[in-house]
């Protein structure tokens, strides 16, 4: 089995497995965030649960961090190895004739998502870690805010139009990453034979709905703060 993950196909499978976890995480994240539009109170309750539940904090969160780090490190490793596999490049190459832009530029959409993750950490994750693990405040409340603080903080962040713009841009690139990535992950797992069309359609829907949902939430809070 250890030999398997050292093979080219093993690396593909590992990449796909981390991607599956990330895609499941995004679905879950969007489902919770959409509550901030539908019902601020429920959003606060769920956020508090996710932010303080030991299973989420000490089991799922480390797995998520591992998956993200593994995915982009492996992404860079594969990209590097693959570009080294062709020592002299073509004088004329017509990639558009046989493959999609998305499939040829996974590294660039990936780097944009990575930049977004950096911004997102500075915006939300680092402050949370600071409040909870350094200051030891697990109450989920804040002075001057009635009830839980999460909804208030979220809305406050999206007051800045530059942040909303940056979020929207990155999410469009996430959509492009997923437009290729979704079916690609299934193909890597050896699972597309016979179900190609269905998977492609689900992939397209996923790649549109997820980013569009996040963009909608950011704009909604920007306009309603």
């Amino acid at each position, binding site marked *: 089995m250890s030999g398997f993950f050292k093979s080219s196909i093993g690396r593909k499978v590992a990449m796909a497995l981390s991607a599956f976890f990330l895609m499941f995480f995004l679905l879950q994240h969007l489902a919770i965030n959409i509550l901030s539009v539908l019902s601020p109170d429920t959003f606060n309750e769920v956020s508090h649960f996710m932010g303080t539940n030991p299973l989420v904090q000490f089991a799922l969160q480390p797995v998520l961090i591992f998956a993200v780090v593994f995915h982009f490190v492996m992404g860079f490793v594969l990209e590097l190895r*693959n*570009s080294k596999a062709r*020592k002299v490049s073509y*004088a004329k190459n017509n990639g558009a004739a046989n493959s999609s832009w998305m499939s040829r530029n996974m590294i660039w959409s990936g780097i944009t998502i990575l930049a977004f993750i950096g911004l997102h950490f500075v915006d939300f994750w680092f402050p949370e870690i600071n409040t909870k693990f350094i200051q030891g405040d697990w109450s989920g409340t804040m002075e001057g805010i009635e009830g839980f603080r999460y909804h208030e903080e979220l809305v406050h962040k999206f007051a800045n139009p530059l942040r909303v713009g940056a979020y929207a841009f990155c999410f469009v690139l996430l959509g492009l990453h997923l437009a290729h990535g979704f079916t690609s992950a299934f193909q890597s797992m050896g699972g597309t034979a016979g179900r190609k069309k269905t998977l492609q359609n689900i992939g397209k829907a996923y790649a549109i709905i997820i980013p569009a949902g996040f963009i909608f939430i950011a704009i909604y809070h920007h306009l309603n703060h």
Partner: protein
Amino acid sequence: MNLTLKIWRQVDAKDKGKMVDYKVTEISGSMSFLEMMDVLNEQLVNAGEQPVAFDHDCREGICGMCSMYINGEAHGPDRGVTTCQLHMRMFKDGDTITIEPWRAGAFPVVKDLVVDRSAFDRIQHAGGYISVNTSGNTQDANAIPISKQAADTAMDAATCIGCGACVATCKNSSAMLFVGAKVSQYALLPQGQVEAADRVRNMVAQMDLEGFGNCTNTGACEVECPKGISLDNIARMNRELMKASI
């Protein structure tokens, strides 16, 4: 028609090589691409110059020898054809055509447009065969029934001619379409079952050793493959390797 050709010239494996411009005139649309190259070479020989070296043999799309990267595409702009089957009617009078060898670290250039594809042979030697002894005691062909679907899918995989267009066109120089086809043609038939696990393990190991890149499922190979080998064969190879590893 009259054409300008930009062709990769390289004296030997060590030479740095460069693109050189040539002109050919009165090319008929009914000529094949290789016949157009013959016209050019005749011209060069008559002028006392070295003809352009290129691989070819059957000139009817079955041997897999011809291999030119034409205007940025393996085997040129047409679909489902090898370079020898490509007609000059795909081009217009006055066109400039760029002609390069397959580019991949695992396919080093030997001379001009000729590359060394023995990496494919070594992958085949690693497992692309069956060891069933068929001489003398051949059993009846119908003794082991094989479904029509399995036979057809195996035959589709077996039509791969080992030309290497999949590697040449892949942005990662990955050989997975070729190896996927070679694994699949046996994986689907009873004859292939005995050595199935070793076959896929050894062929993939050899493929990695040769320095081919890693497939990222762009699908370019499937589009450019002259035999229409499907990506399903790569998925099947992935499944076979997973099965062989647990």
